């Protein structure tokens, strides 16, 4: 859709939203309020589950914590409902922090089940505390009031609810379009990917979890002062499942999916309630059957939810992507000073790695000086990949030392080593297929700037963001992909993807670039291009370590070679000498050549 058409559509929607309460009955307005509250919770789910990859069956518990907190404060202590908001958010945030710290290190299915566990426990707690009215709950909660004007009427609450919803969406959109947002969008790529750019996946996930919980908390506060009574049943696991259904039905792939999903589910239930009694007397029992059947049918036609369906339809009808905004000039980020040629960069001393009884790396030592390209080669099973992982801190060493830039990094995690200036690529390319080339490379800049989620959401990070994108564009130009900055990374052929990964590693301004089998699966032309790129980088002063299989590629490129076999170092030296060495020939060819 052309920008003008989409802008006027947005404007029309905005006007419609503003005037709806003036024409619609209070029931419709109440329904819209409920849709808004549901949209807030679903928004948190789109962020947490859709973007962050952590399925949560416990969001309703956070809604409940906030609702009960504010209800308790305003009924038992007679305080103003506006004070209930910070109190509710504080309580919700702290609970989310505690629960997250306990459970977010769990992986996959364990995490999902843990959300059921605490979701259930918390909602049970509500029904068993005397102070919270046990199972009858708390009623007579005072409504909100601005000045003298009470917000008890659904029409009045409508504006507040939808203002909050709008702010929530703005915050989320700003968040995703920023440095922490880029890292959050990288969560599905795995902790290793994020660690390689210096981002802590666990902390990101924790912040995301708390953010989603706070969104649910906002919804809870609104719920309490809109309905003016709270009881345990709307905050049970069933309610959490319903929020998840909303998010999935609307589409986990886009923020609008939360709104669409919430509207779809609640409106559908309402319509069924109206229509079914015409068809049969037993409508009460048919509601859930028809609803579930329609829901399943929806997912059959649109697996990614309604919004995914809309996006596909728009693309098919030639909507095309919006033209990217012209890049604003920005001050470049400070670069690290490269050490003089020859200074020792990396020093591996006696590295040993044992996996149970198997010794994968057996007392390997070598050095690497600034400005040179070192190749680490060997036949299959030589232990190259394991050595690589030891260097980068992906797996811990059994014994031995590694020194990087005069620091002992032997026990450090990959994350920390990356931040010290080690950029790496992966044997199986780890790009984010649905992010643009620019964004993928910008992910590499992560460790060089600082804006947090809060600043990003409030749009206070525009300066840093410009600098990040400037740097990312610079790296893209360096590898020759500058004119394709806004294409999706998933559409690139393998060779180009590998080069893009190198750009991402370069974007972190490393002292040392470590490449894991970069030539694997490349065609001849691509290999030539890669070789040229690496040579150019060396001229610019970069130090490179390549782990590779392909002898031809490596021979014309590297300054020195280290050959490994059966976990031990076989020889080390200039390429020509190594090639002529009998032991190397025996290792590769299995006998005297």
């Amino acid at each position, binding site marked *: 859709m052309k920008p003008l058409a989409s802008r006027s559509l947005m404007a029309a929607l905005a006007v419609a939203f503003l005037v709806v309460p003036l024409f619609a009955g209070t*029931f419709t307005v109440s329904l819209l309020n409920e849709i808004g509250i549901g949209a807030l919770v679903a928004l948190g789910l789109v962020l947490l589950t859709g973007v962050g990859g952590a399925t949560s069956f416990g969001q309703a518990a956070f809604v409940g914590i906030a609702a009960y907190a504010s209800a308790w404060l305003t009924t038992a202590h007679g305080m103003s409902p506006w004070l209930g908001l910070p109190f509710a958010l504080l309580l919700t945030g702290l609970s989310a922090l505690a629960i997250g710290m306990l459970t977010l290190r769990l992986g996959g299915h364990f995490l999902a089940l843990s959300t059921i566990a605490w979701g259930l426990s918390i909602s049970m707690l509500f029904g068993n505390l005397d102070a919270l009215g*046990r199972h009858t*709950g708390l009623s007579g909660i005072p409504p909100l009031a601005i000045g003298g004007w009470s917000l008890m009427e659904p029409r009045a609450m409508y504006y507040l609810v939808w203002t909050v919803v709008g702010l929530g969406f703005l915050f989320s959109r700003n968040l995703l379009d920023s440095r922490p947002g880029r890292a959050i969008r990288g969560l599905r790529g795995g902790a290793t990917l994020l660690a390689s750019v210096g981002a802590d996946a666990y902390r990101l996930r924790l912040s995301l979890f708390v953010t989603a919980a706070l969104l649910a908390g906002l919804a809870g506060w609104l719920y309490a002062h809109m309905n003016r009574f709270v009881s345990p*049943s709307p905050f049970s696991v069933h309610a959490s499942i319903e929020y998840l259904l909303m998010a999935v039905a609307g589409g986990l792939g886009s923020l609008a999916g939360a709104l669409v999903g919430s509207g779809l589910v609640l409106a559908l239930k309402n319509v069924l309630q109206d229509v079914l009694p015409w068809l049969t007397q037993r409508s009460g029992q048919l509601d859930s059957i028809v609803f579930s059947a329609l829901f399943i049918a929806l997912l059959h036609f649109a697996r990614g939810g309604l919004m995914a369906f809309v996006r596909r339809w728009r693309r098919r009808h030639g909507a095309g992507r919006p033209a990217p905004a012209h890049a604003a000039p920005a001050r470049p980020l400070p670069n690290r000073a490269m050490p003089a040629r020859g200074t020792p960069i990396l020093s591996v001393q006696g590295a040993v790695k044992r996996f149970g009884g198997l010794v994968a790396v057996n007392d390997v030592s070598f050095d690497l000086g600034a400005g040179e390209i070192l190749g680490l080669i060997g036949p299959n099973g030589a232990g190259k990949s394991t050595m690589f992982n030891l260097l980068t801190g992906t797996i811990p060493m059994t014994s031995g030392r590694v020194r990087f830039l005069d620091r002992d990094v032997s026990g450090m995690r990959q994350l920390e080593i990356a931040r010290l200036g080690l950029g790496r690529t992966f044997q199986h390319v780890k790009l984010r297929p649905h992010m643009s080339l620019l964004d993928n490379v910008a992910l590499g800049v992560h460790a060089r700037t600082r804006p947090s989620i809060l600043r990003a959401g409030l749009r206070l990070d525009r300066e840093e963001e410009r600098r990040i994108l400037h740097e990312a564009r610079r790296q893209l130009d360096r590898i020759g992909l500058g004119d394709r900055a806004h294409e999706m990374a998933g559409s690139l052929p393998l060779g180009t993807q590998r080069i893009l990964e190198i750009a991402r590693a370069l974007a972190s301004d490393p002292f040392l670039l470590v490449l894991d089998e970069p030539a694997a699966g490349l065609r001849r032309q691509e290999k030539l291009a890669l070789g040229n790129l690496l040579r150019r980088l060396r001229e610019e002063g970069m130090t490179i370590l390549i782990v590779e299989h392909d002898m031809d590629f490596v021979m014309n490129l590297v300054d020195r070679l280290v050959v490994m076999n059966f976990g031990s170092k076989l020889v080390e030296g200039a390429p020509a000498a190594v090639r002529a060495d009998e032991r190397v020939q025996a290792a590769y060819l299995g006998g005297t050549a």
Partner: protein
Amino acid sequence: MALFLEMSAAPRALRWLLFAGASCLSIAAWGADLKVGVISSLSGPVSALGIPYEKGIRAAHARFPEVAGHRVELVVLDDASDPATAARNARKLVNEDKVDVLVGTSGVPGAMAIAAVAQELKTPLISPTPVSLPGPDHDWTVVASQPFELMVSAVVRRMKAEGVGTVAFIGFSDALGDLAYECLVRSAGELGIAVVADERYARGDMSVAGQVLKIIGKRPDAVFAGNSGTPGALPYLELANRRYAGRIYGTHGLINADFVRVGGRSIEGLEVPSGPVLVAGQLPAGDPIREASMAFRASYEKLYGAPPTDAFSAYTYDAYLVLADAAARVRGDAQPGTPAYRQALKDAIVSTRELAGTHGIYNFGPDSRYGSDERAVVMVRMEGGQWKLAAQPAPPR
């Protein structure tokens, strides 16, 4: 199999067409209809109560399709046992369907939610579920049911008469359980009976072995269960399993045929309070409650083909009776569908005097939401699969 034939497409579409045609005709027709909005839990955990409620009011509607010269139209909505949905339904009924009176719902939190909406939208509400609404802020609600305390204190008096000194409580971990426990503690305290245990379980639980073991460990003279429906049979089954020899009591929530079936031999001798309608045939002749109850049973049997096996459906029948009686006394010339009519109707409801229903004789007033007195409770005992009127305390075991 019959159900599927009932629901197959062709006859349903035909009914839809006929209904649509008929309503088009009737819209133009008569004077204002009296619209009654009914909210009940037809699905979800409280549906065991909600479904009989719907049946009861339809039986009443079948018996009295016209009230005070107005045709009555029932609009029934399901709240799926969720209080927020109940409140939303109440709003919908008043704002969109323009009902003149609300009846509902079948769970205490839901009923309280509707009461708040009824108060805000100034529509009379007749609740068949006992709710506690303290203060003068809820004068648009009346309750067509015995207060829970009334029922529980009847049981406790019977306990005292049968020589019980200590009683253990086991009930649902929900609003009903809380209510039953509070009433038990209050009544037992007044009569000097000690409550020695407070055990709870969820409706869906498959076993209460732990809870019952704890109770037996305290050796109470009697066990009182605060629960309802077939999940209510679980403690009695387990007590029988553990060969408990003391007396057993319960609430009126246990009165339905499925409970009796599931409870089997373990509930022999169980004593519960009940509205008189349950044992209508055993009431003395000439009792106005007996008349109303027999009429209810006849109407129910005519509509559903079998007499009622529970006492819940009678509550909404009574609600309809209250409504009909009040509508006949509405003063002024306000028409149904107007706020003035709702106000007049509410005034008439609140001034009901000596109305004989199936669950007692109703007298409403401005001070209290309830209209029942001691005539609304009788004690019944389970004997051989039947509920028998137990006017006298049981002999010692």
